[in-house]
């Protein structure tokens, strides 16, 4: 009987995920999702490299180029940026009346939340793979993946997607308009992006800024991703993964609760 329950639940989630992928996502968003990090890697990466005279940046025991450092950072950044899609899907569904319609069909709010998270995990991982492939010439000399570091990196990206996806869902359930949601989420995500180790290393920063870096979950995602790509996994990155997982679980529960309590 449990199998029947699981099947019904899972099949509803998969149907909603499929629907998100074919109907709810704006194609321009997907293009931007890839284009922005690639432009950043090839323009900002080489421009800043020239500025810092190509001095090496330490990741664990390894010294890598700034472009390699930035490429790995952009993969983590991309996961965060892509998570905005969960809020966008929700707002589009509300605006087009589909949110209410789906809820009078045999779907639950919990399934809707999970389907949105799976959607952004798929998009996050797919775009991370594309960025990795496009950025490979820039990090080729530094990449050092193992059988263990690949799933480790993927896990970090998935957990990161769940964290930021749940975060945008909470935000979108609390905001009264899509304009308000866009302003707040863009502002917050700007903070997350630039007060993190996505673009520059956290080591050597003034203490208040360094603390701010480690309050930001994007720093954990980016650190773990880098550690995975360059095989520099250590105790610190393991602790970061545990903290990130706990944060993601907590934010996911809050998002689910916010969605359930929301008046339709």
């Amino acid at each position: 009987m449990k199998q029947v329950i699981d099947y019904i639940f899972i099949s509803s989630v998969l149907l909603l995920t499929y629907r998100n992928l074919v109907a709810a996502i704006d194609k321009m968003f997907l293009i931007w999702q890839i284009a922005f990090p690639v432009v950043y890697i090839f323009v900002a990466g080489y421009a800043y490299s020239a500025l810092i005279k190509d001095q090496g940046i330490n990741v664990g025991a390894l010294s890598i180029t700034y472009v390699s450092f930035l490429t790995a950072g952009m993969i983590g950044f991309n996961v965060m940026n892509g998570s905005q899609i969960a809020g966008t899907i929700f707002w589009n569904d509300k605006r087009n009346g589909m949110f209410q319609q789906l809820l009078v069909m045999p779907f639950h709010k919990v399934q809707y939340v999970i389907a949105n998270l799976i959607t952004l995990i798929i998009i996050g991982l797919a775009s991370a793979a594309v960025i990795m492939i496009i950025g490979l010439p820039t990090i080729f000399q530094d990449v050092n993946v193992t059988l263990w570091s690949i799933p480790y990196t993927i896990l970090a990206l998935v957990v990161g997607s769940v964290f930021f996806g749940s975060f945008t869902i909470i935000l979108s359930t609390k905001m009264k308009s899509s304009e308000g949601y866009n302003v707040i989420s863009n502002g917050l995500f700007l903070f997350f992006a630039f007060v993190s180790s996505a673009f520059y290393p956290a080591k050597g920063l003034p203490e208040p800024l360094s603390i701010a870096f480690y309050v930001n979950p994007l720093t954990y995602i980016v650190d773990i991703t880098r550690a995975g790509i360059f095989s520099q996994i250590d105790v610190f990155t393991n602790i970061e993964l545990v903290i990130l997982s706990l944060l993601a679980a907590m934010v996911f529960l809050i998002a689910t609760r916010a969605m359930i309590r929301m008046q339709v």
Partner: protein
Amino acid sequence: MEEKCICMSTMLSDSLSNEAFSLPRDRSEPCISVTNLKKQYGKDSAYTLNGVSFNVRYGTVFGFLGPNGAGKTTTLKILTTLLSPSSGSAQIFGRDLVKKQSEIKRKIGVVSQDPSFEANLTVEKALNLYGLLWGLRDSRARKDKVKEILKTFDLESIKNSKNDELSIGQRRRVQLAREFMHDMDLLFLDEPTVGLDPSARRMLLDYIKKHVMSGLTVFFTTHIMEEAEYLCDEIAIIDKGRIIAFDTPTGLRQKYVGVHKTIEITFKDILNQSFIDLLKRTILRWRKKDGGNMDGYDHNRNDNTSDIDVKGTNTVVITVNDAEHVISKILQLVYKNDMQIESISINPPSLEEVFLSIVNNKDDDNSWAR
């Protein structure tokens, strides 16, 4: 957190009992049974629904009418599981609405008042996706169903248009058509014909009638009384969160005025004021002689003008109880004045008149409710 627990346990219990779900087809059985339903949005706010009770029988069309803000949408949202009631109970297909949500949702269709559409998809793809979401897994069967629906709802010419490129009326047609992509036993229609042209409206009403003949139950809200009259087997009128009338359309009319009817006479000649005054005096004299027999109608209408209206230049509309007697008096008067009649008709009151009378008189008399 408590709500979440209820939701999760509902999902599980619903899934467990899914296989044993079958519906009775007896028209005397209630498909929807609502008892003392109350809804309060905030602790200190007034009740939006204040003790609503009614039954909807299987295989019938139930009209749910009421002025704006009466509680129609709140009732509909509760019955379609979007809102939880503050108190009271509701059963659909004999199942508790709160405890068996998923089970019930698999057997209902809902066309809401607000538009809903997949903006990025073409009409054909949106229908196809909707069928899939409803569990129509066989792609061949789904394609055939889409073809059938496109043809029935006259959507073939716009099947390749994206939903956000359509006019309001076309989008509405797609929204209605979409709901017939899946099998259901109960259909909720919230003002479904808003934005439709007359032929699309009539087509939809006839299509619904056809489905009702084969066992579908329909819960129908509208502001258009002709539609309610055309489609509904029973009608409930709600105002300020309470049901103030509940009967068949004919029953409501009888309760409203008994034998009250409207006589409409169109003359060949243009009416002059002296003839209209004479007509009014004659009817007033007859009424006084007859003891002012207006029972069941409007007791305040004892003046000599309010139940005679002139339409255009040559038509009079007279509202009376005893139409057969009055008409003989009128015909005598017409003959004496050498007037010529082009057409004459005696009509029962329209449902719109019934609705207006009930809603306007609800504070004076609550005896309408059955």
